[in-house]
């Protein structure tokens, strides 16, 4: 795929920052969506934006695993390499 983990990481952060309208620099891998100010509707926005950004489909089962930036990176990475 030629997509390194660090590149995925920075793209995921950009997506989350855009949806939550916050500065990318404030996002660490451990920050949960709730800690960053997002609710369940913001989480739906993040899922949809990730699907567009990486041209993937995120199943409901995978979606349920995404609670933070780090878990979003893990799920995207898993889908891209499977």
């Amino acid at each position: 795929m030629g997509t390194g983990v660090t590149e995925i990481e920075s793209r995921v952060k950009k997506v989350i920052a855009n949806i939550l309208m916050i500065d990318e620099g404030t996002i660490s891998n451990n920050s949960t969506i709730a800690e960053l100010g997002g609710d369940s509707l913001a989480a739906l926005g993040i899922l949809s934006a990730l699907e567009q950004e990486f041209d993937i489909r995120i199943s409901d089962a995978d979606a349920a695993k995404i609670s933070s930036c780090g878990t979003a990176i893990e799920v995207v990475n898993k889908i891209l390499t499977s």
Partner: protein
Amino acid sequence: MKKRVVVTGMGVITAIGVDIKSFWDSVLSGKSGVKRIRRIDTTDLPVKIAAEIDNFDPSDLLPGEKISRMDLFSQFAMTAALEAARDSRLESDEMGKEKIGVILGTSVGGIYSHEKAAKDLFTKGYKHVNPLTIPLVINNAAAFHLAAHFGFIGPNFTITTACTSASNAIGESYKMIKNGYADVMMTGGADAPLSPVCLAAWCKLRALSLQNDDPEGSCKPFSLNRDGLVLGEGAGVLILEEMDRAIKRNAPIYAEITGYGNNNDAFHLTHPSLDQEVKAMEMAIEDAGIDKNEINYISAHGTATKINDRTETIAIKSVFGEGAYKIPVSSVKSMVGHTLGASGAIGLIATILGMKYNRLPPTINYHVPDPECDLDYVPNKPREANINAALSNCFGFGGVNASLIIRKVVN
């Protein structure tokens, strides 16, 4: 002095029946109306099932020109309204139409016609936009068509409170008659949400069942393996009437509406609030002035989403305490899908039919009990029982809650 309000006519159109008789026969046989969607292309969508109405042909009921001026949701409303008016013998009523009004509920109104116009504009250009788009799309189009057809010149408006729309419409109609502002109200709800963008948008909410390979078994309210709601379409229309007027003209009397409670969560657009659901039910019970232990059936909102069914179960238990375990609770959404702004009317009609025929509508597809949903959900088969008083719940997006109470009328 407050007036008493009775139901004197009913009409319905759903995926399991296009009139009261076929609908009730299907409810009693526990039939699912869910199938692969045929009206629109679902190739790119994760959800390919819905409770779609097959072979709907309104030309049996109305001339072609009238039909072309109605979106599908208005056609559904008109179909149910014609049946309800006939059932109530309203068309031969000669007591004057000044105090007959219409309040309907709809969630997405003329969304199908809206999307068609948008597609025509964006793909073909301005010249191709249907000049009747606005009259087709506006949410109060259906209520207008009903008033115009029957000559009802009383109060007329439309309520849009998502999945609670029809219950709010019925509740407000009840208040209108109870307080003397109208003698008769044609009320209920209609929705036709199976349009391309609407369906895609529901998919994006991740609230729909993904059981594409088992359409009929997909909608499983209160079961442990429930995985979301299934969209439906249709309409339910009821004629509410001031009791003395109904008796005077010898109209059929199905039930009395005695209580209505409504409020808002003021909390979250899509996440239910336990406390406010409890309060809506308590408000309705207080309005009805009955002992809550008299209620012996509950028509649940029962959407088959994880959160709704769990929250509604806890709410019922906190209203009725230990008594909750003795009250049968069922969801006709297991059969007709979630018809959004029509659902409150369709649920209430099923309840009234249950009262009339001494049968409780079942919750179908109930095979795996959920420890968190531990009430009596009338699993899979209708049950013989005498309903004296019933509660009907609707809890919609936008935090809107409404509960209605009906009682059997003893002559």
